[in-house]
C-alpha cells in the first residue's frame, strides 16, 4: 500500500514507500529517524515541526510526505555543517534563545528562512516573521535578540 517517494533529506536522496496519509513530520521522525523535528499541535499553529522544503519554511505536521516527493527537505539535523553550528544556531546559543529546547528546531528553521528573505530585519520584522512559532519558555525576547544577532554577524 506504500506510495513510492523520492525525497532529498539533508542532502541525501532517499527512496521510500509511504502510506499516503503519512505526515511529512512523521516521515522525517519515524522513517528517516530524524527526531529533531518536533510535534507540538498538529494544527500548524505552534511551528515546532517547521522544516525547510525547497528552501521554504514549512510546517511539516500539515503536509503529507507524498507532497514532498521530489523535494529537498532540510531539518535541524541538516543545518550544522560538518558539526559546526549554523550561524543561527550559534546566535541562539549566545543569546540564550532557548530554555526547554522543544520549540527551538522549528524556531531556528523559521529564522533561517526569515534571514534569507530579509537579511537585515528590524526587531519588528523578526517578531512578525516568527509569529507562526510559539515558545512558552523564553517569552521571545532572547529569541528576537538571537535572530538580530545572527543577522548582524552575517
Amino acid at each position, binding site marked *: 500500500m506504500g506510495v513510492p517517494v523520492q525525497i532529498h533529506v539533508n542532502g541525501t536522496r532517499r527512496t521510500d514507500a509511504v502510506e499516503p496519509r503519512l505526515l511529512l513530520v512523521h516521515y522525517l521522525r519515524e522513517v528517516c529517524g530524524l527526531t*529533531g523535528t518536533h510535534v507540538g499541535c498538529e494544527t500548524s499553529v505552534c511551528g515546532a515541526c517547521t522544516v525547510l522544503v525547497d528552501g521554504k519554511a514549512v510546517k511539516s505536521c500539515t503536509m503529507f510526505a507524498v507532497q514532498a516527493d521530489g523535494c529537498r527537505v532540510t531539518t535541524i*539535523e541538516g543545518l550544522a555543517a560538518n558539526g559546526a553550528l549554523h550561524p543561527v544556531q550559534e546566535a541562539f546559543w549566545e543569546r540564550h534563545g532557548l530554555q526547554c529546547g*522543544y520549540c527551538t528546531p522549528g524556531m531556528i528553521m523559521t529564522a533561517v528562512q526569515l534571514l534569507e528573505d530579509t537579511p537585515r530585519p528590524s526587531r519588528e520584522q523578526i517578531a512578525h516573521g516568527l509569529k507562526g512559532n510559539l515558545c512558552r519558555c523564553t517569552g521571545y525576547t532572547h529569541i528576537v535578540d538571537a535572530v538580530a544577532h545572527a543577522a548582524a554577524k552575517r
Partner: protein
Amino acid sequence: MSTITTEKVGYVGKAMKRLEDPRLLKGLATYVDDLRLPGMLHAAFVRSPHAHARIVSIRSETARAKPGVVGVFTGADVNAHCGVVPCAASQPDMKAPKHTVLAGGRAYFVGHPVAVVVATTPYLAVDAAEAVEVEYDPLPAVVDPEKALEKGSPLTHPDLGTNVAFTWNLAGGDIDAAFKNADRVIRQRMYHQRLTPMAIEPRGCVASFHQGEGTLTLWTSTQIPHLIRTLLPGMIGVAENKMRIVAPEVGGGFGSKLNLYVEEALCSYLAMHLGAPVKWIERRRENAAATIHGRDQIGYYEVAVKNDGTILGLRNRTIADLGSYLQLLTPAIPTLTGLVLTGSYKIPAVKMEAIGVYTNKMATDAYRGAGRPEATYLIERLMDLVAGELGLDPIALRRRHFPTPQEFPFNTATGLTYDSGNYDGALRKAMELARWDELVRRREARRREGALSGIGVSTYVEICGMGPSKAMMAGGWEWGCVRMEISGKVTVITGATPHGQGQETSFAQIVGDRLGVPIEDIVVLRGDTAVAHYGRDTYGSRGTAVGGGAIVMCIDRIVEKATRLAAHLLGAKPDQVVFQEGRFGLRGGAGKQLGWGDLAGEAYIAKNLPPGFEPGLEASAFFEPPNFTFPFGTHICVVDIDRDTGEVDIVKYIAVDDCGNQINPLLIEGQVQGGIAQSIGQALYERTVYDENGQLLTGEFTDYAVPRAEDIPEYVLGSTVTPTTSNPLGVKGVGEAGTIGATPAIANAVLDALRPLGVKHLDMPFTPEKIWRAINQRT
C-alpha cells in the same frame, strides 16, 4: 553556612551560555517521543466528549478487529489493577472522589479517559480509538462554582452528596477589631480566570517492564520523576526499588507536569500486562482538556482602612474551582494564596475562608506561580483600589506599608517569616529605570488629548525555595551528589529535576568555582532515578535554592575529605593545609601543591591513605532548608488603550526583581522574561473557557491565545540583590517571579487607563472586546 567562600570572581555571577544547549540546538536531544524500543506498542485514548454523562455501554468489537490492534481496555478491565490517582494535599474535612485511571460508570469532564487502545503503530491506535463506540447518557453538568454551592445544584459527584470538597480557614491578628476600627471598608469581587499551561511539548510516556527482573522503567515528560517513583508503586504494585523513572528532555512544564497522571499509571500497567513497551504521546487537544489547568479562583475581598490609608485588615472568601478530581496538589493551591495574601505589606490582621468546589471540568493544580499569582494580583489590585477610593498616591500607599530592611526577618499575619528584603530599594530602582516622572507627565499629556493611558505598579513578594519539610507535604529537602572522578573530572548529580531552567550550567558554575575545576570538566546529571537516586524535583522555584544547597554541602564534604588526604600526603596536619583554586598546599606556601588529579588518583587507587580513611572522593547530601525564600520586586507597566478597538498596547515595561544572589544573570533574565510573557498572556489574552454545558471551547492553540513574539514589548530589566538566609548560596529562586509580579502591574495599568471613565475594576483577560464594552457602556 558554607565553609568555603569564593573570593575570586569565577563562573558564579557571570552571564554564561548554557552547557546543555548544543544538543538542543542540533536536534540531538532526546524527548520522550524520540524514544524507540524494540516491540514498542502505542496507546491512544478514547475520551468523553461530555462534561458529565453516564456511560451506558462501550462497544469495542469493531476496534478490536482493526489492523494492528493488540487490545482495547475499559475501566472494567483495568481499574481494579491500578489504584487511584494520589493527591498529596489534604484538608481535615476533605471529601474526595475515587480517581480511577479510566472512567467507571460516569464521565466527569470533557477529555475524561474512558478507554484505551493499544496497537502496533500510533496511526493504527488512533484509527481503532475512533472505532470504539461509547454510548453516553448526558447528565446536567456543574460548570459555575458559585452556582454549584446553591441548594438544588446538580452534583459533580452525586455519591459525595455535595460539590464542596473542603473549606480552609486562615486567621491571623484581630480581624474583628480591624473592621470595627475601620473608617471605611473597600470591597471587591475578583475572578482569577482559569488558564491552560500549554507547554509546547505535550505530555507523553513510555513504559517498559522487564519480566525477568520484575522491574519497571517509565520514561515520562515530567517535572517530578522522584515523586512519581514514590507514588506510582501505590497504584500499580511494583515496589519503589524495582521502579526507575526517567524524565528525559522535557519540553516545558510550568507546573503542568508536576503530577502523576492516569496515563502514566495505565501505560505502566499495560506494559506489564502485555509484556511489551507501551508508548503514549498526548495530542494537543488532549493536552488542553486533560492536563491540569491553573488558577480559577473567585474571591470576595474586603479591606478595612483608616481614612489616612492605613490598612488594618484584609478579609476574604475565596471559591476555588477544583474541577472534577483532585490531582497531586489541587487542594493546596488556594492555601498558598492564603499564605501570601498580605503581599509585601504590614497588614496586621487577615482572615480567609477558601472553599474548594467540584465542577465538571479538568482539575486545577499548580500552574507557574500556583496560588501566589492569585494572591499577588488581589493584594496589588486592592492597593490600587484603596488608593483610588481614598484619593491617595498608590506608590505612597505601598511604601507606608512596607516593612523596612531592618524589620526582617518579618513575621506576617498569615504565619510566614519573610527572610530578607528591601522592598523600597527595588521600588526606587524600578522608578528610576522607568523615569517615573516622565511616565506620569506622558500619561497626563495623553489624557489631556483625550487618550486612554495608564501606569500600573506591582510590588510583589513570593514564596520560593520550597521548602522546609515541616511545611511541605512530602519532604521539602533536596538531594545531591558530587563525585570527583579518578581522572579529576567532576560528576554532579542533582535530585532537583531541571527541565530547561539551566541548572546543568548554573550548578556547574557553582561547582567549578568552589572546587576550582574548569567548567568543561564538569557534568551535571539529573532526571533519572537510577542516576539521581533521590530527589524532590523541580517546582516552586526550588531547583537552585534547595537543590543548590545540597550541592554546596557535597562540595564542602569533598573538600574536607580531600584536605585530610592532602595533609597525609604532604606529611602535615589537616589544619596546616590550605585549599585554593583547586590546589591543596601547606599554609605559607612551602612544599609541593596537590591538584584534584593527584588526590583523586590516591583516593581511588587507595594504596596510600591515612589510617581509617574511606576510599573514594564522593559525597552526597540532603539539604533541608530552614525556611522558604521570599523573592520580591517591583514591576511597572505603561499601557495605551485604543478607544475605538479596545486594544491594549504595552508601551513600556520595567521590572526590578530581587532573587538574592545571582549565579547566572543571563538565565535569570530568561526566567524573568518568560514569566512576564506568561503574565502578558494571562492579563491580555488567555482564558480557559467551558460553555454552560461544560464543553471545552479552548481545546487548541487556535482557540487558546498564548502570546506570540509580536505581542511582547521591549523590557527594561534590573535587579537588586538581597541574599536569603535560607540556604548557603543566598539564592532565592526566580522561576515564577515573572508570572507573579507582572500580571497585577499590567492589570493596574489597564485599570488606571480606564479610571477617567469611572471603571474601577474588570476581570482578566483584558481582551479588546471586554475593554471596548467597558468604554462604551460608560461613555
